[in-house]
């Protein structure tokens, strides 16, 4: 360890070491300078770009969503501006504390908190989420005075969707609600991602959904300089958004209101179409809901109530709920018989009150039968036997082909989403529908119950109104549609949804006349006569009853004996005036009993309003059921045979 003893050399060694240290200092500083040179000269471009992209942020500006008005200009959907209190969770010091603090100056109910929690779960952390909407001016002022206490909380002026007519035509109009993951995927798949950057809401149901990309508009954007916290410091450039297109509907809110009121809260649906062009004037699904509830995130209890109600108010029955059409199927069958040449109008059968097929007996509901029945009378009195025989003669394939031509068993392509195809039974359909071999076989007996609109048949009121419109229009088919024109509010350009006939069904006008006269006969002297007593116009119609509850053989269906939910569904299809039909209506009232009882009086009120301007005093009354419509027991036997 001799090195430790050279004390006399100490100053010299100190100087050497100091010099060495100085060299190391220089070296270290050279390294630093090299690093600066690398960053500031060699990599300058790269870092300059990074700094720019740090600095500049493209902020999308939401376009105004298009308005929706009915054919007379009544506003169905519009936007209004209101203040919301919004929280960006990532910027708060503590979410719970922030909300508690806010509730001291602004009323925040438990409902608001619950909704906030739900939105929070659906959202990303850096989004701002409303805790309260529609602040009053006083509330805005109170918050402004204390806002320094609440980092991450802002009052924002936002446009809200509003449906001024509330529940009126709610299923047709639909609603908008916050974009969820599924919507985002749809937006991406359709290539609209860029345009939806600042958009928070999207049409979920009805026209709002179908015409989403018309209504939405084109987002504008601002180039803003932002700080590290994402706050805009100043605007560098501005591109204005282009507002969405406005929709003018074919819907007539007055007719719609009359029709909705006519239901008086009963479950069911109605479709009213102008046969000359396919314009939908009324589309009722009862009961309805208030679309305004959904706009800023539906509250939990409201959602619970809508979702769990046994009346299923969210279901759009007019397009989605399908049921056997019962006797309303008969005029269609009759036209099919004429068109396929299986019957002449004046050809009559003798109705003994039943039809024997194999070892089965299909019953007419009039004991002893209707006597001699030709086609006109078969419709007026709703004779089952006539159609048992007819169906048997035509065969299921002919029936299916003709009804398919009329538009049944397929989507009508109406311009709202969620339409059901319905069921048009045929051998091929059954083969596809069932898995087991023995179930796949079509039995001739099944054809017979199809002939009177029972069996596997299942259609919506839209289907039935569409088919009847096609008939009274002599086979010219229009796509049912709710939108008449699409207006660009910026250019004023108007696009008319041109009602082009999409196809022609080969129907003979003289055959159509037979059916129209027979249906007029139903109203004049048949099953519809009581509901239309004293009408100031001539209309044609047909009642129908769809069975809900299977009775054992030999039991007679008595409405009072079965529970309300097990009562038959009541159908009525109609057109008016007979000479030159302006309106075709199909109505189905769930558990409404006979067709003439519940459904026909609703159509009476709609026709009264549309053709004479008469407004009804209240919901449509129930009319005592005349005979000639029920066929329950017989159907039971047909079912027995089918299975």
């Amino acid at each position, binding site marked *: 360890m001799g090195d430790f003893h050279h004390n006399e050399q100490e100053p010299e060694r100190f100087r050497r070491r100091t010099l060495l240290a100085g060299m190391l200092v220089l070296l*270290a500083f050279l390294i630093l300078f090299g690093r600066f040179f690398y*960053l500031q000269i060699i990599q300058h471009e790269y870092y300059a770009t990074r700094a720019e992209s740090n600095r500049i942020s493209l902020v999308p500006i939401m376009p105004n969503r298009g308005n929706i008005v009915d054919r007379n200009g009544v506003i169905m959907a519009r936007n209004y501006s209101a203040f919301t209190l919004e929280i960006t969770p990532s910027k708060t010091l503590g979410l719970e504390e922030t909300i508690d603090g806010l509730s001291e100056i602004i009323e925040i109910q438990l409902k608001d908190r619950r909704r906030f929690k739900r939105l929070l779960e659906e959202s990303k952390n850096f989004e701002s989420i409303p805790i309260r909407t529609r602040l009053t001016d006083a509330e805005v002022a109170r918050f402004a005075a204390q806002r320094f206490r609440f980092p991450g909380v802002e009052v924002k002026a936002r446009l809200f969707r509003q449906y001024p007519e509330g529940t009126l035509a709610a299923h047709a109009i639909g609603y908008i609600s916050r974009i969820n993951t599924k919507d985002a995927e749809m937006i991406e798949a359709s290539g609209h991602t860029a345009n939806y950057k600042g958009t928070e809401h999207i049409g979920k149901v009805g026209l709002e959904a179908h015409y989403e990309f018309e209504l939405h508009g084109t987002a504008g954007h601002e180039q803003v300089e932002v700080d590290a916290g994402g706050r805009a410091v100043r605007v560098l450039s501005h591109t204005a958004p282009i507002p969405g297109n406005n929709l003018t509907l074919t819907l007539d809110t007055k007719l719609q209101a009359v029709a909705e009121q006519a239901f008086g809260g009963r479950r069911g649906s109605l479709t009213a179409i102008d046969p000359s062009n396919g314009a939908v004037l009324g589309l009722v699904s009862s009961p309805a809901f208030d679309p305004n509830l959904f706009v800023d995130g539906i509250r939990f209890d409201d959602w619970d109530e809508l979702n769990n109600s046994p009346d299923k108010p969210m279901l759009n029955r007019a397009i989605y709920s399908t049921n056997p059409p019962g006797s309303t199927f008969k005029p269609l069958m009759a036209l099919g018989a004429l068109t396929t040449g299986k019957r002449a109008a004046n050809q009559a059968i003798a109705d003994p009150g039943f039809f024997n097929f194999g070892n089965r007996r299909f019953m007419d509901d009039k004991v002893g039968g209707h006597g001699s029945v030709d086609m006109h009378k078969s419709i007026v009195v709703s004779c089952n036997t006539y159609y048992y025989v007819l169906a048997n003669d035509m065969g299921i394939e002919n029936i299916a082909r003709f009804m398919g031509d009329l538009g049944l068993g397929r989507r009508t392509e109406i311009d709202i989403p969620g339409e059901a195809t319905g069921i048009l039974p045929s051998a091929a359909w059954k083969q596809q529908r069932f898995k087991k071999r023995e179930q796949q076989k079509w039995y001739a007996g099944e054809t017979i119950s199809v002939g009177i609109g029972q069996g596997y048949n299942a259609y919506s009121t839209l289907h039935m109104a569409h088919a009847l419109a096609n008939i009274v229009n002599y086979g010219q088919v229009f796509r049912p549609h709710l939108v008449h024109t699409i207006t660009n509010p910026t250019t004023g350009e108007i696009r008319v949804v041109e009602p082009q006939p999409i196809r022609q069904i080969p129907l003979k006008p003289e055959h159509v006349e037979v059916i129209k006269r027979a249906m007029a006969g139903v109203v004049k002297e048949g099953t519809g006569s009581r509901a239309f007593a004293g009408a100031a116009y001539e209309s044609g119609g047909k009642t129908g009853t769809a069975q809900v509850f299977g009775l054992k053989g030999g039991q007679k269906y008595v409405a009072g004996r079965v529970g309300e939910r097990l009562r038959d569904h009541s159908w009525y299809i109609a057109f008016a005036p007979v000479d030159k039909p302006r309106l075709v209506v199909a109505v189905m009232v769930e558990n409404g009993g006979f067709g003439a009882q519940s459904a026909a009086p609703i159509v009476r009120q709609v026709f009264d309003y549309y053709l004479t301007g008469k407004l009804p005093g209240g919901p449509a009354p129930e009319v005592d059921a005349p005979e000639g419509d029920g066929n329950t027991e017989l159907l039971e036997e047909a079912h027995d045979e089918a299975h």
Partner: protein
Amino acid sequence: MKLIKRIIRGILAHLDMPLFLIILALMGIGLLTVYSATASDGFWKLDKQLVNMALSMAVMLLVARTPPQTLMRFAVPLYALGVILLLGVALFGIVVNGSRRWISLGIVRIQPSEIMKIAMPLMLAWYFHKHESMLRAKHYAIASLILLVPIIFILKQPDLGTSLLIGAAGFFVIFLAGLPWKVIFGLGALAGAALPFAWTMLHDYQRRRVLTLLDPTSDPLGAGYHIIQSTIAIGSGGSLGKGWLKGSQTHLEFIPEKHTDFIFAVFAEEWGLLGNGILLILFTLLIGRGLMIAAAAPTMFSRLLAGSLTLVFFTYAFVNMGMVSGILPVVGVPLPFVSYGGTALVTLMLGIGILMSIHTHRMLVKK
């Protein structure tokens, strides 16, 4: 009149002009940059920094007038006080941001590790000075012990930046005192071998800092954010900078701690490579002058003290600029004479005062 003249002459007598001018230049840069960095918060920080500067200047002048022999008398008491206070911190310290660095002495809160920054080189320089005539291995061992005790306390707080600075100050004294090269290399090899163990001793946040340094992009929103944003600031400054008050990274708040530890990023963004070069030259001059003073110092105590303090200034500057430009891990070390903050400035100016004292008293000692 005479009195004023005497006072001025008295002040000037113990003022080292080159050192003083360099410090003034650095402080000027500091003021400009603090002004830019705090423009958005109002200028009260600038006012406070001016007060800090005046105060630290007074401390410097006071110390400069104090002869090194007197300073030597403070070595042991100051060191002992520092260790006792550090013990107090470990036992009753106040936790701020997860670190136990402060102790409350009734009215004031102090950070004893700050005292150690001066006490450590003072103590070691005194120790070697005392045993100047017969330095043996055991003296180096004891010196190491004197160094390690407070370092361990400070590492435990935890405060990596300060322990690094104090460790460096002590090491420089021992190194300049003549620690044999084979011991230095031997210890270096040992330290290399001990690295894996040290790794397990580090706190989570310290490990994260090291890992983040190796790959800042691995955690762009968390620990890597600081480094990424400060390198963007430096790189985007280019050769001549964006101009004073025009740094977008600075004024849009992308740079964290922009008036304290990361003030260099602000400076580099606005003044570019040219500014950085000037800053490096100023630090080089400062250190060069300090080492000259050390080399010219008459006693072992003043030599070691001056050399060590000068190299500590270097450590400050190098570690700070290294971390802000992304070649060293982020440790809490300010840029000397530039960063905002009173305590650090007073400590630094105390060091400058000692350098001046050593230099202006050298003739007196020789006589």
